[in-house]
């Protein structure tokens, strides 16, 4: 019977670039910077790495297919290297490859790198999904956009729980305002200004009810992690961070076709959360999680994730939001570094950037935004639309 990888894997080094409009730096530059920081943090040399995983989403606008660009850029010495792509979970997917490699005993030390350069494409949102959406783009996708797909999640949620548009938008604005505040304390973030609830509520509409500040930014960035077997972690550092659970759930397609889904939440988030909590031995997430980084591509995504991860009871997220439960000084601070809202979303890098924040928080090295005595951190990625998605949930701790 499978046991999972709880406490089998330790993170011994991480690196993360500043995120932003990095016109003057290539994807290779970003990888080198993230890798250098991680090597120094782990106190190892390049030759100590046995295998590498590389997460990047859009090979058309980035670094091309395969893991060649990783191994050539970092001059890795003829080791196994694998490129992975799994929508917005691509970064966490590369981390999963590295973790499984050391958990299995196949490797002593493995590297996970995620990178994406999006600003050069000249596009404000994600690159064109035309081919992805396929043959029925007009009828099934009535020019539905990414903001539009998540906006319908908000409309359905407001309707189900009896929120007026004003009440619903105010709760969503609290989420974004909170993240922008945290971003001001986060030196590597792209957007670092306070944004008030009033300004967010009055911003231009992108896809009603979502306005400009309900949507995350687009940016360039890279992040990487070096992992080893937990039993060897003390050889490298006194404060390793342990992987407690790491799960991915990909929809079977039933939300769209089986008509049982009510369109107010994301089933794969619930399923990935359940699997990761089981692996990590967490029975009451609301009591046991210290802080988290969830996939706030849109403010409503963060709201529905609170409930799908069983932090807030169904229909009660708004009460928690307004009570400050997820604020930096709240019970479970969420997006302590500012989240996608402030870092933007270089797709392949985002998952590992989130892990970087949990790693620093669990080591007590998060500076002005440090959470008091954290024990368990969580990261979450959601790729696709609410009705068909790829979701990762990872759980980390600072003790075995």
């Amino acid at each position, binding site marked *: 019977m499978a046991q999972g990888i709880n406490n089998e894997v330790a993170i011994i080094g991480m690196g993360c670039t500043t995120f932003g409009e990095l016109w003057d730096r290539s994807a290779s530059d970003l990888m080198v910077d993230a890798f250098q920081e991680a090597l120094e943090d782990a106190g190892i040399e390049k030759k100590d790495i046995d295998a590498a995983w590389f997460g990047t989403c859009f090979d058309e606008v980035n670094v091309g297919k395969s893991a060649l660009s990783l191994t050539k850029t970092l001059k890795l010495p003829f080791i196994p290297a694998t490129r992975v792509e799994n929508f917005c979970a691509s970064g966490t997917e590369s981390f999963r490859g590295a973790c499984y490699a050391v958990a299995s005993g196949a490797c002593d030390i493995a590297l996970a790198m995620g990178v994406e350069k999006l600003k050069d494409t000249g596009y404000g*949102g994600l690159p064109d999904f*035309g081919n992805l959406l*396929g*043959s*029925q*783009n*007009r*009828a*099934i*996708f*009535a*020019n*539905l*956009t*990414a*903001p*539009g797909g998540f*906006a*319908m*999640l908000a*409309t*359905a949620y407001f*309707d189900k729980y009896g929120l007026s548009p004003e009440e619903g938008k105010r709760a969503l604005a609290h989420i974004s305002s909170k993240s922008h505040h945290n971003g001001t304390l986060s030196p590597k973030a792209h957007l670092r200004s306070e944004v008030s609830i009033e300004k967010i509520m009055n911003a*231009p*509409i*992108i*896809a*009603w*009810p*979502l306005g400009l500040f309900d949507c995350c930014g687009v940016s360039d960035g890279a992040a990487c992690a070096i992992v080893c077997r937990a039993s060897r972690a003390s050889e490298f550092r006194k404060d390793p961070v342990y992987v407690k659970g790491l799960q991915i759930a990909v929809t079977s*397609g*039933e939300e*769209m*076709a*089986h*008509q049982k889904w009510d*369109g107010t939440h994301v089933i794969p988030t619930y399923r990935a959360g359940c699997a990761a909590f089981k692996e990590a031995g967490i029975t009451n997430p609301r009591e046991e999680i210290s802080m988290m980084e969830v996939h706030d591509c849109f403010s409503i995504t963060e709201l529905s994730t609170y409930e799908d991860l069983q932090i807030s009871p169904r229909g009660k997220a708004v009460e928690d939001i307004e009570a400050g439960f997820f604020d930096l000084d709240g019970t479970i601070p969420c997006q302590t570094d500012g989240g996608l809202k402030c870092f933007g979303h270089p797709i392949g890098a985002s998952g590992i950037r989130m892990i970087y924040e949990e790693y620093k928080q669990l080591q007590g090295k998060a500076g002005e935004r440090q959470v008091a005595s954290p024990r368990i951190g969580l990261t979450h990625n959601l790729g696709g639309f609410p009705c068909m998605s790829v979701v990762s949930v990872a759980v980390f701790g600072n003790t075995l």
Partner: protein
Amino acid sequence: MTYNKPLPKINADTKEFWNGCKQHLLKIQKCGDCGFVRYPPSFICPRCHSTETEWIVAAGKGSVYSFTVNHVAFHPAFQEDLPYVVAVVQLEEGPHMLTNIVGCDLSEVRCDMPVEVAWEAITGEFSLPKFRPVL
């Protein structure tokens, strides 16, 4: 008048649906084994995996399940339509259909609002099933 937006691409699964649309008939599928009524078109029943399929003509009536109003076009051809409503309509027969709501003021659209199909003939080959409020 030329139509500049992306056109549907017909495949084996969707041919019957688009042929129906051309005649302004909203054709959806019913499983020959378990009776489950489904959309979008698929070769097998997602409930019981049967390949026994019957095409039925939906009444073209339903209600708005959820919606958004797009104020930014992510495809340039839709720029001239802004702002426009994208909605999920729940058909009387059960399935959800992604579509546009037309024929009313944007601010009138609500969840659970009764709607009926409003055909938009875009080319000689294609008509799109959009929906409008039932008066």
